[in-house]
């Protein structure tokens, strides 16, 4: 790539194990790369481009949605290098894109979108991620947050009891092979049919909680073994259930359509397909790495492993991915029932009122969609890895109740800051294949967060700020500290200014439940 290094400096420390003993490391060196920034052109104050000619392997330009301040963050890690590699995917259309919450991943950066031509363009599991259909669901209650001010600790403790969390933890539902097949093939719709929730829950879920082309037969035994006891569980890391209050409304007309009002108590759920999805991705990345040579595909990073969508391997992966996505929607549906049970147990069933789904979105997924490319409507395979669908007003896939205002977009912030409800726009359809950001994006390694944040002090500080934290692990709390993440407000302001999603409401946490 012809990178030129302008300077280096010593920063940080590390440790290693030698003959069973822990030892401190020597030096960590950081390079400032000048040539990439020199090659980035500003298209607008919010949209930047690395032209196609920057690297011979690029088939399209690479575009970054960011403010100038956030762009410096983006350049600091390997996100742009990875985005440039994505721009070399076979059949990629218009541009490889990243959002302002981007950070480096493996193969694809996290916070990116790549659309490839249907049916022969590439499909790449790395463009979806290991946690297939990691996503967010927002529930609305009938409560003003003051109504339950004295109950948040109790509610948090009961939510922690009702929704299993933590590394590798299993749930209360143990599925037979036949039941697992139904979950994989029918997703949230199967859970509702079994009595876990209502038809209204599905109506306000992306793709109605089920990708119909899923095929449980394409999911390996190992993936099944990892996932069969995990439906209805939160997991760990950055997954959570959160009680929030609506503390700002930016667009009252749309907020009313969404059923949101000031100081309303809402519940945010963030989780995905658990071990099943992770294993599906692992299985198919391995398979595609072997198959790529057959299709004369050579790429710079193994994690970009891909095959033509129309190939047997591509077809199998798409069906398995859909099955894992269905598992994630079933998971969030069961967790929704856990939330309802927790409220009933603490408040009494006659006092809970209606807890309904505002919307449920995926931010790691691939879909076949129609988008305009070079002035022509085309079918493309849209890969979203740490990016959220954001269809604008009038789109037929937006449920009728929201069609006049656009699809709800749910953006979780870090613990202790804010989350946002946005709406999809026509701008996202034109600029980003109907997509926008997914969250705040990490800026600090987990190791550094653990070493620099004292979890007990953080929990105490959050408590003083009116946020009760119910967590299974101090390590997890430290790793997810607010300072480990970018400022979500900056991220959301960029997508709003760029016209690829519209701010509707802001949510502030009152209780955070984590694994």
């Amino acid at each position, binding site marked *: 790539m012809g990178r030129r290094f302008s300077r280096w400096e010593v920063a*940080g420390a*590390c*440790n*290693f*194990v*030698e*003959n*069973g003993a822990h*030892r401190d*490391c020597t030096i*960590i060196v950081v390079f400032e790369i000048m040539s990439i920034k020199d090659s980035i052109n500003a298209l607008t104050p919010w949209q930047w481009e690395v032209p196609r000619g920057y690297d011979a392997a690029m088939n399209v330009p690479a575009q970054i949605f960011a403010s100038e301040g956030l762009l410096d963050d983006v350049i600091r*890690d390997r996100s742009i290098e990875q985005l440039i590699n994505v721009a070399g995917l076979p059949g990629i259309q218009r541009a490889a894109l990243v959002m302002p919450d981007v*950070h*480096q*991943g*493996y*193969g694809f950066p*996290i916070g990116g979108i790549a659309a490839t031509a249907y049916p022969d363009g590439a499909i790449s599991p790395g463009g979806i991620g*290991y*946690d297939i259909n990691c996503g967010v669901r927002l529930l609305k209650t009938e409560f003003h947050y003051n109504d339950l001010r004295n109950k948040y600790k109790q509610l948090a403790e009961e939510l922690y009891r009702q929704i299993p969390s*933590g*590394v*590798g*933890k299993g749930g209360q539902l143990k599925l037979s092979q036949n039941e697992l097949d139904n979950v994989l093939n029918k997703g949230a719709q199967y859970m509702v049919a079994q009595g876990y929730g209502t038809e209204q829950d599905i109506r306000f879920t992306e793709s109605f909680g089920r990708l119909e082309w899923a095929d449980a037969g394409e999911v390996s035994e*190992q993936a099944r*073994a*990892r996932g069969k006891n995990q439906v209805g569980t939160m*997991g*760990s*890391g950055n997954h959570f259930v959160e009680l929030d209050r609506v503390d700002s409304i930016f667009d009252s007309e749309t907020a009313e359509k969404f059923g949101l009002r000031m100081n309303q108590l809402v519940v945010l759920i963030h989780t995905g397909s658990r*071990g099943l999805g*992770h*294993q599906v*991705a*692992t299985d198919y*990345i*391995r398979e595609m*790495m*072997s198959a790529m040579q057959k299709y004369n595909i050579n790429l710079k*990073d*193994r*994690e970009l*492993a891909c095959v033509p969508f129309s190939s047997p391997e591509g077809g199998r992966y798409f069906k398995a991915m859909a099955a894992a996505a269905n598992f994630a929607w079933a998971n969030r549906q069961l967790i929704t029932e856990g939330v309802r049970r927790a409220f009933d147990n603490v408040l009494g069933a006659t006092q809970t009122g209606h807890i309904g789904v505002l919307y449920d979105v995926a931010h790691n997924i691939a879909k076949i969609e129609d988008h305009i490319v070079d002035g022509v409507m085309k079918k493309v395979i849209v890969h979203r890895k740490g990016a959220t669908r954001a269809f604008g007003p009038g789109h037929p896939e937006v449920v009728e109740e929201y069609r006049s205002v656009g699809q709800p977009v749910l953006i979780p912030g870090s613990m202790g800051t804010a989350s946002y409800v946005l709406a999809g726009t026509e701008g996202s359809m034109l600029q980003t294949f109907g997509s926008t950001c997914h969250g705040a994006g*990490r*800026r*600090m*390694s*987990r*190791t*550094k967060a653990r070493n620099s944040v004292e979890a007990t002090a953080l929990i105490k500080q959050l408590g003083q700020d009116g946020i009760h934290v119910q967590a299974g*692990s101090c*390590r997890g709390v430290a790793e997810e500290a607010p300072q480990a993440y970018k400022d979500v407000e900056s991220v959301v302001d960029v997508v709003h200014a760029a016209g690829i999603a519209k701010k509707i409401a802001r949510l502030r946490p009152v209780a955070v439940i984590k694994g």
Partner: protein
Amino acid sequence: MKQFEIIPHTADVCIRVFADTLPELFVNALEGMNHIIKEGFCADVGRGEIVVNIEVHAADETALLVDFLSTVLSTAHTKEAVFCRAELDELQSGYLRGRIYGNRTPDGFDEDIKAVTYHDAKIERMPNGLLQTRIVFDI
């Protein structure tokens, strides 16, 4: 000689592994992964109460290492155990066969490794004669 070191990585965890020989590299990488999964667990366990036979095929030795760790990780999740020891009966560029020994962990893992990635992984012989590679784990 150091066996592995933790490298800063924004969203995930990365280790750099060192060894004199290829089998040692595999064993040291396993130790590095277990350090992340449950730090200190492998220091005090004996031979291992659970034994699992493993066989892995891959395109080259780097992919084989990643696939070996993936196999152990996946088995760790399904058995709810940490596999501290590996005996490799056969280890070639694209194939290995052997056994892993583990112990159950009733109180779970410290970190949820979603997957072992191929990103930045490349087994190389360094000028000092050591074999080395990075391994990035998706957390």
